């Protein structure tokens, strides 16, 4: 039973690793990723304003970009 479980786990891990090798797309498959709203910073002003609010009101900052301060709001 234990052996069966091990084989199953090994199989799952190996398929995941194969999956990793297959990560990514060909240039002609970028139709969806190329959309403006799929850019990681597509809402730059919203994210910047949010960072400023949360930097001022909470003890942690950064994540998407540098954590640095730059204003006396905290």
């Amino acid at each position, binding site marked *: 039973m234990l052996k069966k479980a091990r084989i199953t786990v090994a199989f799952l891990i190996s398929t995941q690793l194969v999956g990793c090798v297959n990560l990514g797309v060909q240039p002609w498959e970028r139709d969806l990723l190329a959309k403006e709203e799929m850019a990681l910073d597509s809402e730059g002003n919203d994210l910047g304003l949010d960072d400023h609010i949360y930097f001022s009101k909470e003890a942690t900052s950064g*994540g998407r970009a540098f954590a640095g301060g730059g204003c006396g709001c905290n």
Partner: protein
Amino acid sequence: MKKKLNISAALASATCALLHPYASANEMLEGWKIDTSLMYYGETDRVSAVEAVIAGQKDFGEEQLLSGKIVIDTLTGASATGAVAQLTAQTVSRPSGEGTYTVSPGETPLDDTFKDTRVQLDGQWTQPWSDVSRITTGLHLSTEHDYYSLGFNGSYAHDFYNKNTTLSAGLAYSYDVIKPEGGLPVPFATKTASINTSEDYDDNEDDESEDDDDDNDNYDNDERLGSSDNKSTVDVLFGLTQVMNRRMLMQFNLGFSEISGYSTDPYKVLSIVNEQGLTQSLVYENRPDSRTKTFAFWQTKYALDFGVVDFSYRFATDDWKVDSHTFDSRLRINLTDSSYLQPHFRYYNQSAAEFFHPFLMEGQVLPEFATADYRLGEMSAYTFGLKYGTKMDNGDELSFRLEYYQQSPKNAGFTEPGTLQDVDLYPSVKAVIAQVNYRF
């Protein structure tokens, strides 16, 4: 003659520019993508802020990008001083030492002179380094009446596997100068204050008079360390962006931050209370002059047939012993080809800094560092929001955002003496965020 011609030409073009301001503005903006925002942030009975942003980006071709941003914000209202609420009225001097203000019984003491205007400028230039790599350099400047910051940053990004994987490394440095109103307070020095009894309390009192220390010999309003101090921050950021498949994109960031210099909030105080929970005096806080922060950030975006899922998680920890978890999610739902609705939900929680004390006990040895700033205490917070955006016929985009933000500070295990059990030491902070964006 040539000089004369040049002058004539300059005059002609200047006249032209004056007569056709729109034409010249259009010429100047040619090739720029401009994103403008106006945001209102308002807390119930506390701070309100208005922030305007103009961000622009120009593509010079061959992956050469110039971007810039101007931010102007104004803050007004009141912010928590760190002092505890009392069952009787409290009278506290203002940070500048000019006049006093009265805090009603049961209310959290707020500094009612919170007012500032800040101007921030950012510029960034991206330049290819090779066919598969690029460098970015940037400049950051922020100025307000008691705080100035100047920063530089640089980063390198390299693409692998048909641009499916991008690795990046960045370095940022910022130098901040703090020039608090009234000077830098001496850590744990007593702030001028008189604690009124309820019999003395007059609801209509608005005491704008000069401070009178005659009856308060133990209060020292003049003791200051100087007028300004500084702080420097070095940030290191490593990033990995990975295209997972035709629909999914992921980003992993690892960041380190080293802050050294003045990190105390010069306007914050702590209450020293007796066994009955009655405030005996207010003392200025003191924070360590260094802080090392680390964070890990993961974001994924997934393209649905009808929109986009955006989810991120951040774990942050530092040597002040503040650990935090942040979950942020947005779901873009395309209503038509040109309009969308986007619900937003964010959850945040943090543990208290090791030197956080909601108050100090009279007669006990003062700790080396202490703050009662609730922002360094234990708390959780959430944000709910909704955004609506529409693309107009000319390609410009207009969007509106409305959000609700609530912070719920918590007791991190402190026992409250006497009457402090009858007041709310950890009041919630509720805020509304309203924003309009125009992109062209």
